[in-house]
């Protein structure tokens, strides 16, 4: 039974956890990533630092960090205010607030096999628009971009065909439309 007020941490029953993409614009200074990441002691968070220049200020470099979190609305709001009070943070924008964020991830994946499995891997890669960036007579390295679930699916398909190794970048996200974060 929920009380009229209580801790944010007790409220999962009324706020469905949702996935949120937050763009954080920070000063490009040493240690800034550690400051931002230090806030995320909770599990289940991913981050993706991206170099970025603020339009109109060509000499002053800032970096853009994309934070992917899952949590109820009020926990996501707490994360935003906590990020915003860090001194080198310029702006915190919830890209999923309006439901219009674009997200992409890049993955390099190594598959090893001969004969039919090798041909099948190449065919599937073609269907997924993955590029071959390295090949030997018994292996491929594919480069593939897309939404995280597309990449997940590709990994599932490659597993029985001789999956060796995966390197993923994490998500880069941006809002649709003409407006920028700055």
């Amino acid at each position, binding site marked *: 039974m929920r*009380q*009229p*007020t*209580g*801790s*944010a941490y*007790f*409220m999962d029953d009324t706020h469905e956890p949702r996935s949120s993409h937050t763009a954080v614009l920070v*000063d*490009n*200074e*040493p*240690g800034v990533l*550690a*400051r931002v990441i*230090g806030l995320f002691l909770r599990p289940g968070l991913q981050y993706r630092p991206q*170099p970025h*220049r603020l339009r109109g200020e060509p*000499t*002053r*470099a800032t*970096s853009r960090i994309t934070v992917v979190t899952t949590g109820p609305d*009020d926990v996501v*709001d*707490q994360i935003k*205010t*906590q990020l*915003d*009070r*860090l*001194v*080198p*943070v*310029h702006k915190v924008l919830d890209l999923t607030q309006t439901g219009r964020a674009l997200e992409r991830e890049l993955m390099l994946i190594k598959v090893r096999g001969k004969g039919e499995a090798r041909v099948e891997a190449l065919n599937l890669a073609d269907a997924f628009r993955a590029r071959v960036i390295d090949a030997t007579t018994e292996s491929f390295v594919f480069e593939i971009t897309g939404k995280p679930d597309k990449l997940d699916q590709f990994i599932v398909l490659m597993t029985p065909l001789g999956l060796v190794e995966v390197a993923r970048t994490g998500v880069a996200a941006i809002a649709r439309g003409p407006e920028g974060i700055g």
Partner: protein
Amino acid sequence: MAAQDAAELEPKTTEEAASIDPKAVNLSAETMTGAEIVIRALQDQGVAHIFGYPGGAVLPIYDALFQTEDLEHVLVRHEQGATHMAEGYARSTGKCGVVLVTSGPGATNAVTGLTDALMDSIPMVCITGQVPTHLIGSDAFQECDTVGITRPCTKHNYLVKDVNDLAQVLHEAFYVATRGRPGPVVVDIPKDVQFATGRYVGPGDIIHKSYQPRLKGDVAKIREAVELLASARKPIFYTGGGVINSGPRASELVREFADLTGAPVTSTLMGLGAYPASGPQWLGMLGMHGTFEANNAMHDCDVMLCVGARFDERITGRLDAFSPGSKKIHIDIDPSSINKNVRVDVGVVGDVAHVLEEMVAIWKASRSRIDPAGLADWWRRINSWQARNCLEFKNSDETIKPQHAVRRLYELTKGPNTYVTTEVGQHQMWAAQYFRFDEPNRWMTSGGLGTMGYGLPAAVGVQKAHPDALVIDIAGEASIQMCIQELSTAIQYNLPVKIFILNNEYMGMVRQWQQLLHGSRYSHSYSEALPDFVKLAEAYGATGLRVSNPAELDDTIRKMVETPGPVVVDVHVDKMENCFPMIPSGRAHNEMLLGEAGEQTINQAITDEGKKLV
């Protein structure tokens, strides 16, 4: 492509590095050494006193200090002492406290005080020396990763690698430490940077490019708050340390607004003095050891105005039973404090004084008024709670009751020129309950972190800022030993602090919890092998007094006040006295234990679930 990415992530060039808009900075550049820049920046920031301890990595700064006359340095005996002195100095003046320590152990010894200042929102700039730039990362003598270690315990920190950035970074450090929710800032300066020659720039009008906390609240929200408050029948003001940090005007406005609305006022440990303890609407402190009337009023109110407090777990007790029927208004300068622990109905982000100024004006202009019949009814209920007289205790002719000792201390020393610091434990709670504060900035205590050893150095810092004031450290015999070495500092600088030790030969609060939670098994909480505090005081060159007879208590306190120089008073008090009232862990505000509760009730008071809490 990869090379280009890397280039974009490279550290900024000198011109880009400092975050202050160069246009806003006074560009009449002068050239001097890094060490001279430090001194000059402190002077330009209006710093009169710094607390520090020299060492290899800050020798150039100490050399520059040697040649400076209008910046007074207080030599401490341990770096932790320096940080607490700066805290006491800051808390009692509203200014920024400044600390200067060396690399390695100097910096790590300062960590406790930095964390303490972060938890209690105390403005502090801590300058640390560092090994020369080319040795960083080589495990050099007295090297530690100061910015790495202090990142989670400061509001912000800097490692300055270029002497031309130093002046701007220092000015920015003061800006960050004092603006918004105040906090500690560390500036780590390698020794070669202190020797190098570079450009000095003055503070100018700093417009920080990313950190600009808002002072004025959203007027629409303030109107909403006023309407909500005007609709109340059972209002309460819950004020905190944010009122003190906002400055004297904020305290005046709390008083004015309380007077206008007729609402009762309670406060957190950190907010004592914002509303006078002698005021007609004062309910006393709230929370775990708060008064019966304050906690019951918080539980039963219908509109709560939280001013500069943060719904700490020592305040709320059991969260899902915290003030269940009330609408809540929260004023705080830190947006992340709002809706953090408790969901509020109206959150106003802004400085307390700015927001209250607006709130009072709107209240007056709209001729708002709380329904007098409802309010009268509310006060009748509050009066019935007050009639329980929850701070009453059974006094004794044989042993000195600690509550009695604090009450007599208050009666014999009260006045606007009296400042009180405490260590942490039972004596701290008794001081909060029985010493009554009518003005802000008179009460210095370690609230958030709960640092034993805080009180004596804090008192030294307060006395430095207020040389003619009566500064008393209410201490326990265990806490006082944690930073006793600062007595030597008090002697050196002729700072007549008075140390009032409530000696019950136990870490009292630990013993109390062991009695309540662990079947009276007093594991390692007895203060064995105590020093003779009178001889200890004399060894340092201070005066030592001792009292154990209640009849001699008053005379001893008078003697303490009259004796010039530092005085240590060893007050032998009842060993087994517990601190009441108390909300046991895991219980709600209306489930308090009062002093008359028998042993039986105490043992049953805390559930198994509550025992797991702290």
